[in-house]
């Protein structure tokens, strides 16, 4: 499902703020969390590979025997520290200084927050990351996957222990609000056509699609148009649009002009 149409069905959870406003956030799903981990692993692996290759090149190209031995020792030490650092420090450090994000999470717009919506503290980050041997690494990852799958707030054991959850931050298309909507916009084109009322969610969905359609592949574009057409068609009941023979995409453009 495309994110612009699946918005209402995404898993959400309520947070409570001191201002007595319920904050509803979109919990990150298993797929994006796994992908974020894979990105982080790849980054770590790349750093390791680059250091290894550079170190090897250096060690093989210096003539001095003492220097060779020294550099190969330094390289071994560096590699051991890198592996250790990736396993125990990387996630802790990034989630701590980047307020709940690692490079992988940042790329996928994921963030770790406390269960009450407040930012994670150092101890929270330590708790959720030091428990990775039990629920993320190697075969134990199955345990974490299972927990994320069944838990209402998609928490793995480390998240439960730290009282944290991983959310997905949605991108927003501001340009759709720049145009003036309502009868004023369509008054020049068709005076006779009655206005059709959309809810704000439907209005937004329609305009997000119309704004984005030129960047989509043809099949995706048509499929989305059809799915939107089917969703919005009941609204046109009783108007001339109901029986209009227009293809779905043009029908949507026409609908947008009448709202």
């Amino acid at each position, binding site marked *: 499902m495309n994110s612009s149409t699946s918005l209402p069905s995404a898993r959400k959870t309520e947070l409570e*703020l001191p201002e007595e406003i319920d904050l509803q956030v979109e919990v990150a799903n298993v797929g994006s969390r796994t992908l974020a981990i894979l990105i982080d692993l790849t980054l770590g692996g790349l750093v390791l590979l680059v250091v290894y290759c550079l170190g090897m090149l250096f060690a093989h190209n210096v003539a001095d025997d003492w220097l060779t031995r020294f550099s190969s020792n330094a390289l071994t030490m560096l590699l051991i520290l890198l592996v250790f650092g990736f396993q125990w420090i990387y996630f802790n450090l990034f989630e701590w200084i980047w*307020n709940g994000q690692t490079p992988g999470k940042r790329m996928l717009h994921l963030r770790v927050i406390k269960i009450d919506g407040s930012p994670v503290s150092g*101890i929270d980050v330590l708790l959720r990351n*030091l428990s990775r*041997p039990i629920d993320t690494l190697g075969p134990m990852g199955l345990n974490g996957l299972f927990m994320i799958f069944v838990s209402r707030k998609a928490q793995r054991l480390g998240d439960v*222990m730290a009282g944290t959850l991983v959310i997905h931050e949605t991108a927003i298309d501001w340009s759709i609000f720049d*145009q003036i909507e309502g009868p004023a916009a369509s008054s020049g084109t068709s005076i006779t056509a009655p206005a059709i009322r959309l*809810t*704000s969610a439907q209005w937004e969905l329609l305009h997000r699609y119309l704004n984005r359609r030129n960047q989509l592949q043809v099949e995706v574009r048509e499929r989305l148009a059809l799915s939107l057409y089917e969703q919005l068609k009941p609204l046109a009941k009783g108007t001339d649009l109901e029986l209009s023979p227009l293809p779905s995409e043009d029908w949507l453009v026409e609908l947008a002009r009448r709202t």
Partner: protein
Amino acid sequence: MTLGTFVRKNRPRWQRLETMLAFIETRGPRRTDRPFLRELTSLYRASTGDLAFAQTHYRGTTVLLFLQQLVGRAHNQIYRPHRLSFRVIDDFFRQEIPQAVRAHLQAVTWSAIIFLMGVALGLSAVQFDERAASIILPSSMLDSIYSGHMWTDSFFSVYPGPVAPTKLFTGNISVALVAFAGGLSFGLITAWILFLNGFMLGVVFKLCADYGLLGGMLSFVAGHGVLEISSIIVSGGAGFVLANALLNPGSYSRSDAMASQGRSAVRMALACVPALVTAACIEAFISPSHFPVWFKVALGLTMGALLWAYLLLTGRKAALQG
């Protein structure tokens, strides 16, 4: 008000809040002045109002999600926990870590008992049948013991200079942290790690005694052994604290018990990090050297006494006052 009007009317405010948040998130709150903070809180309050309005009128829109996250971010900055300072670190090491250990001495005791059971079983296994050693020890180590040499000589010639302590402390810290995290497996992994390490120690001791290496073995282990064994026992204790929260949450829910006990447990586990780095330096530089045995024994006992004095005595006064 239509969604478009709402956005056009209020968006400048959200954008201003966003730039202020970006500033405060990268530079930290110290760099801000009074007018800045006043504006931030008033924008925050105005945006919570927008959020409440959007919640009633614009359900299911991305604008609502955007506002929720904007308000969440502002909330994060306004109600953020302490930033790291010298005082926070000082409190953490001088008070929080030892207090956590003292609060859970029972778990530490259980951890020590399982470790000692491992030692006892290791000793008696070799006593019963010498081949038991081959279950757990690598054959290169066995060969050197059978031929009457300390296996440590070869370890330190393979990993010379600063490589040896690096390898030792990364390995030992990983074991200690896995013993802590193992508490989440209802303590099974923790118990297994403690038992295995104890068992290995028992087997090596008995084997060395049988092949006339006891003196060499003691002189090697004395310097760092107390610190290493204490660390694994304390981090095992941390694992059992977690396991206990899972198994006996009392009047709390399991997740609440885990959340509150986890906070002490992770502090206990972190106590091992400096201890294990020290132990690794001793193990790499002093243990294989030709310092006299009495010096190594004295060093080991002093280090062990310092660690336990730190864990059992530091921060008592503050705890009584506080």
